Structure formats: C-alpha cells, structure tokens
C-alpha cells in the first residue's frame, strides 16, 4: 500500500469513527429523548 493510500484510509477511518461516536452519543445514551427544544 502506498503512503498516500494509507493517508487517505486514515482520514476516512477517523471521520467514520467520530461519526459513529456522535450517533452512539445521540441514540444510545439518550434513547428515549425525542429531541425536545
């Protein structure tokens, strides 16, 4: 694997991991919350 390919892969993995954390935080930690104002 070339350096730039690993670099790209790392970038996507970081973004995806953070997005999953965001979703977990929103739905798993507050499952019953319906997004009140």
């Amino acid at each position, binding site marked *: 694997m070339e*350096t*730039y390919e690993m670099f790209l892969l790392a*970038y996507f993995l*970081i973004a995806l991991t*953070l997005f999953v954390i*965001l979703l977990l935080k*929103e739905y798993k930690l507050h499952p019953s919350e319906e997004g009140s*104002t």
Partner: protein
Amino acid sequence: MNAFTYMFVGYLVLLIAIGFYFSKKMKGMGDFLVAGRKLNLPLTTATLMATWTGAAAITGYAGWCYYCGYSMLWIAFATTPSLIIIGILFAKKLRKLALYTVPDLLKLRYDKKTGGVSAVLIAAYCIGVVAGEIMGGAAVMSTIFGWEFAHAMLLVAVIVIAYTTLGGLWAVAWTDLIQFLILSIGLVIAIPLTLKEVGGWSGLHISLAEMDPAHLGIFEYAPYKMILAWFIIIFASNFIAPDIYQRMYAAKDERTARLAMGITGMWDTILTMIALVLGMAAFVIFAGEIEGDMALPMLIDKLFPGIFGAFVMVAIMAVIMSTADSLLVVASGTFVEDFYKGFINPKVTEEYALKLIRVMTIVSGLIALALAFYFESIMDSILFASSIYAAGLFIPVMSAFYWKRGTKEAAFISALLGGAVTIIWRIIYGAEASIDPILPGIAISIVSFVVISLLTKMPEEEKLKPFESI
C-alpha cells in the same frame, strides 16, 4: 456559452423569487436571523453543508491540491474531525441556549463590552470571507464569459446582496437547499468525466508520479510548522464559527442540531475527495501552467462542453453564493444585535431593527466587495479573516463552556489582544511570515485570559447559571 447564460439567469430569477417570497412572511428579527428556530433536519443540514462548501472548499482547496497534491490532505485532517466534534460536544448546548449570535453568548457569560469586541471580530471575519467568495464567483464568471474580473465581482456582489437583504435566513436556508442539490448533481457528473479524461484513478497517479512525485507525498508541501498552524486556525475558528452557531440556534430541536453537524462532517470527506481529485487532475491536464484559483473553473470549461459544463458551473456559483449570503446575514445580525442594541439604542422596535439589519446587509456586502478588490487570493482572505477571529474569541468562548473561573475582564482583554496581535504580526511580517500570525495571537490570548482571570474576582453565580444546566 449560451446554455450557461440561460441556466444561470434562470437560477438567479429563482433566487430573487425566493427572497421575495420570504420577505413577505418575515415578521421580525427572529425570523430573519434564526428562521423562527424551526429549521428541520434536511434544511439545517443543507444550509450547513452548502455554507460549508464555499469558494474556499471548492475553488480554493482544489487550487491548493492542484499545486501540492496529497500534502493538502492535512487541512482535511483538521477540518472534518472539527466539524463532527462540534456535533458531539457543542451542538446540543448551543441549541439549548437558543440565542441569536456568538456575541449573545459572550454577553450572557461575561458582559456587554466583550460582546461588543466580539461583534467587531465577527463582522471582520464574515466580511473577509465574503470577499473571498466574491473572488471565487468572479473567477467562475470571468472564465465562462471572458469578462473583466472586476465586472464579474460587481455582478456577483449585487446578486448576493439583493436576495439576502430581501429574505434573511429563511431565504438563505431554502436557497441553500436548492443550491446544494444542484451542486451534488453537478459533481456526480464532474468526477467520473474528469477521471475518464486522465486515465482513471491509477492513470491519474501514474501521471502525477511522472510529472511531480512530490504531489504524492504527504509532507513534501506541508512542513510541520504549517500543519500546526492549520490545525490551530481550523479547530479554533470552526469551534466558534458564527455561521455554524447560527444554524445550531435555528435548528428545530437539539437532536436536529447534533445530527446536522455530524452529517456535515461526513459531507466534508466527500468534498475533500472531490477537490483532491479535481485539483490533481487539473495539474495533469494543464501541466501546472495555470493559476491555482482558476484550476477548477478552467478544468470544467475545458472538459465539459455545453449543457453539462453549464450545470456544473452554475452549481459552483451556487455554493459560492450560498456561503456569501449566510455570512452577510451573520455580519448584519451581529452588528444590529450587539452594537446598535447594546450601545446605541437598546429600546429599538423589532420592525426598525429588521430595517436596520437589511441596510447593514447591504453595507457589509459593499465592504466585502471593496476588500475583494484588495485581496490577492481566495485562500489568503479567508484564512487571514479566520485567524483574527479565532485568535480573539476561541479562548473566551471555550471558557464559557468549560472554565468557570474565566472572568469578564479577562475575556475582554484577551479578545482585544488576540485579534490585535494577529493583525499586527501580519502587517509587520507580511503574508510569507515564517511563523503564522495565529500562533502568537492565540498564545497571547491564552496567557492573558488565564492570568487576568486568576487576578480578578470570580464571576457571579448568575453569569455561570445558564451554562451549568446545558
């Protein structure tokens, strides 16, 4: 290019019509600035994504990838995570606070004086970025029509000012949605056609390796000092970005705010890939012989004849204009809320405030136009504007959420010092300074904030209360 002319004129008529429609519905400042806090998930996300995808992200970033290749991915390493982390840490807090602008937050936590300084820094930031967007729009227009760059800048400025003044954030959010759809379709057409032209993904990399192997390296064009400066500028300015805060305040609920931020972060990964591929493909096709800022418009003009090219060009114009309009709303709102209401006439009626915001939208647009004539490149104006803002306000805003000991005296002085040192550093050392102005700017802001906070009286309980419950 007739197809482009017809499509562009049709598109402009649509924008003005939307501005008119929402101008009739507008009842007061809440409608103009935060769309009555009723933006649902698709609208919040679209307006965030479209605002995010401005001239910097499309034309400017592609221009840098054109010059430097993969080294520029470091910028995305800071940008994308910063957006998603805002969703994780701040989106809900901001929606709960339900304010209008960033200075509102500083007034709530510190005092009116700090709100006033922040209004100046925000107006400078927004107007600087709008100047960059006007230049980006003019680059596209002058490529297509072969017009004088100055004439193209005038036209872009007039159009954006017109429909923003009419419709406020409602018009901006709806036009953002339309503009974003046009862009997505345009790019779906552009990417495969471009790759086909350069022999596919592997063909692109073989050509780059032959023409300039440094394009495939990750540090060749990005020394560590530069990477550090990018991380600080991008994280600090995004974490307190007034356009992002405004959309968080305008979301219909807290969940909408957080999810919209996360989706925008994921959209940024796609945008990064698009700019990288198009920028590097332009390098291969033009053999590095054109200006970076012109790489994208010229690539599209060359590769996509007729209706396809027209569509993509209109899409790029659309995102550039949607960023400019959003920031004009922020600049004018900040002025009226924090300067006029705070210092000149606190008892102003809603109706008069709305009139004044419209006048300020026009004035901000005109100042941005003047600056566009002054700045030399898109990225220069945008990054410098972000640096002043971030150096002044990052520390006071973060302390509002995370450090109770931070005092109003510290916030006021550190905001002034951070902004001022950044500007002075740039004036003394110029655009090619070996140390980026953000580094001394933010350093002095941190030191002065901590020292003055510890030397002054602990903030009153009532100032801390709104931030404790979020």
